């Protein structure tokens, strides 16, 4: 009894002491961090003054004065600002990431599913791909595609001619460039209508199934609406689409759609590399669905395609989506390796050229990091929303 009384009397004061200790620790930590920041700022100011470097974000509106080899929006060295260069770089980053995400997802799903195949050879080949690609650094792969493959292609003179008037040489890939006549908008509208009708058809079919139980197979009608309708409109409107065929001159190629070897190398390497990781994500997601789920569905008489569609895929997707998103984020961050081969992405343009010209390391790096950081944070916010949504459903 006495013991208990003593310990309960002692506890509040001990906790009190600990609270004070915690508070002191927190204050000290804040002080240290602030102190470090202040010291760094002071040193930076001194060093920059000594090196005669400006500070602040005033440079944003100055004329850039350097060329960028690929710009999705109008850009010229003499007239555009550093701010414009920033947007050009950011768009290039987003372009290569978006295309690579599509390609790597397609390839990754194929390989992931191949790894699960009952065919020994197929699963072994897919496994070999994953192991080989995952264990070689991405930078090495980018350099390989760029220097050893694309840059070793023939010179302009010996260009490889591709079907439909394309060229391939060590300056890039030159493809016919689609030129849209004004009438082409009709085709776009037809496509929109086709998609809308296909969706409506789907909803109608589901309603009908709920009412009568009858199942309709929609693959044919859907294809007809989405592909057939625009195509007919295209023919009726008098083929309002022509192609600008690249024209090989003596020193360069004019017209046509030019794909830089830097872009191509980065795209191939990112897609191939990330696909290996996506394949693992897919495989793990599908394996995480217990065999009992498939068996239960089959025991109820569901066919194997229906089982996949209604039982396995919905459960696997829940396992796949979060790690898949983080692979997409990795891919976007990895696209910054563009700097090694000179593809003008955000890092190459901004943390490379702009930094060299202005010398304003702190501002330039901070802006660059802020871009990636906001992409990451927005994505992880979306993911935590998704996670909460999934958790709510299953309750």
């Amino acid at each position, binding site marked *: 009894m006495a013991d208990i009384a003593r310990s309960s009397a002692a506890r509040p004061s001990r906790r009190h002491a600990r609270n004070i200790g*915690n508070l002191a*620790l*927190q204050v000290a*930590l*804040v002080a240290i*961090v602030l102190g470090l920041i202040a*010291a*760094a700022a002071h*040193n*930076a100011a*001194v*060093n*920059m003054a*000594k090196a005669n470097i400006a500070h602040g974000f005033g440079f944003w509106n100055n004329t850039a004065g350097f060329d960028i080899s690929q710009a999705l929006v109008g850009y010229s060295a003499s007239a555009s600002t550093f701010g414009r260069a920033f947007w050009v770089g950011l768009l290039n980053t987003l372009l290569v990431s978006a295309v690579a995400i599509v390609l790597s997802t397609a390839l990754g799903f194929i390989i992931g599913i191949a790894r699960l*195949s*009952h*065919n*020994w*050879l*197929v699963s072994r*080949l897919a496994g070999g791909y994953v*192991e*080989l690609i*995952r*264990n*070689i*650094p*991405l*930078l*090495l792969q980018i*350099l*390989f595609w760029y*220097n*050893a493959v694309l840059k*070793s292609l023939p010179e302009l003179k010996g260009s490889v001619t591709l079907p439909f008037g394309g060229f391939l040489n060590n300056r890039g890939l030159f493809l016919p460039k689609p030129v849209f006549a004004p009438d082409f908008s009709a085709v776009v509208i037809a496509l929109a209508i086709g998609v809308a009708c296909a969706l409506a058809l789907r909803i109608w079919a589901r309603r009908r199934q709920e009412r009568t139980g009858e199942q309709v197979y929609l693959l044919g009608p859907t294809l007809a609406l989405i592909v057939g309708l625009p195509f007919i409109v295209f023919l009726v409107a008098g083929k309002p689409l022509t192609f600008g065929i690249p024209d090989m001159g003596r020193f360069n190629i004019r017209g046509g759609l030019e794909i830089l070897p830097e872009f191509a190398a980065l795209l191939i390497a990112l897609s191939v590399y990330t696909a290996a990781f996506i394949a693992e994500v897919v495989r793990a997601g599908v394996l995480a669905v217990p065999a009992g789920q498939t068996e239960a569905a089959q025991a109820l008489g569901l066919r194997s395609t229906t089982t996949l569609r209604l039982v396995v895929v919905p459960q696997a997707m829940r396992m796949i989506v979060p790690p898949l998103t983080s692979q997409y984020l990795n891919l976007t*961050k*990895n696209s*910054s*390796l563009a*700097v*090694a081969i000179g593809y003008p992405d955000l*890092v190459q343009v901004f*943390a490379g050229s702009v*930094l060299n010209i202005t010398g304003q*390391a*702190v501002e330039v*790096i901070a802006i*660059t*990091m802020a871009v*990636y*950081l906001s*992409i*990451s*944070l927005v994505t992880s916010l979306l993911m935590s929303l998704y996670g909460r949504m999934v958790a709510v459903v299953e309750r």
Partner: protein
Amino acid sequence: MASDTFYLRQTPLVVLLPPRARAGVLGWLRANLFSSPFNIGLTAICVILIAWVVPPLLRFLLVNATWSGDRAACLPSADNPHPGACWAFVRVWLSYFVYGFYPIAQRWRVDLFFVALAFGIGWLAWLRAPRRDVAALYFFVVLPVLSLILLCGFPLIGLPGVSTVLWGGVLVTIVVATVGMVCSLPLGILLALARRSQIPVVKWLAVMFIEFVRGVPLITVLFMASVMLPLFVPEQLSPDKLLRALIGVAMFASAYMAEVIRAGLIAIPRGQYEAAQALGLGYWRTTALVVLPQALRVTLPNIVNVFIALFKDTTLVFIVGIFDFLRTIEAARGDPRWTSPIVSITGYAFAALFYFVCCYGMSRYVHGMERRLARRSG
């Protein structure tokens, strides 16, 4: 009814072997490669793919390869119209790939460093080795000091100083990877503990650091370390180029390590904390004696996975101008006396082989470890 209902087996059946067609090599082939027309088609596609890729690859890498000589030997000639890989190039440049410009007379020091490192890694990685606590002490305390003295030099004991500018090749790759490992584990543990701390400021500082580093590409962290860091310290203290890159890599690896270790900490059931507290252990004792050992054990495979990623990421120091292994390949490949497409491919093939052997080795190790863990718990 009763005669129908009752059944009693009088003699036990002999165990039969499965029917021929379903067992043995034939049965295996049938079940795994030719079970349906679709499967036969897949098998055929795979065989074609292999036939298309493998023989030319072998021809290039081995059969038609040039094993010795100079650049001329690697070019197409009358008796070798389609020359294969130029291994002669690797032979000539090998010592550069390993040591960079490290003075030739001092290279025994690098060799000694490699041996000391291999010893430490072997001791730590061999899960049933004696005294692995001593191994950890060796790896995380003795080895760094020893390596610093060996590699940088210590004139007082007769080891002349060697500037890091001269370092290169595999040496730099290994140094960057090792420093990343040695720093990231303790820092990662601290960050993970801080992130799970009850104290708000500690927690939020850790969260901010971890999420910041994980949210940006490594290359920007390296740029930050190489161009911003010198601005932040007084000029006379400005660290050398390699050290700056090392700081960047260590920061980056620590953040990832922290998340992996945090996952291990989360996996420890509450009961373990409560049991430790019931025994009267305080926070640090509970953490050091009860929680961390278990968390590190369950998460060891993931820790090694971070090392694998780190090892691949060391190539990025290339971009901030450090002569790591990949950069020495690039440099040698671009040497005007050698440059040619085949030399480039050979250089990359050699680099790929090096990274693949290291990373695949580590991932096999992880695989074995996961199987052990699964066996023990299952």
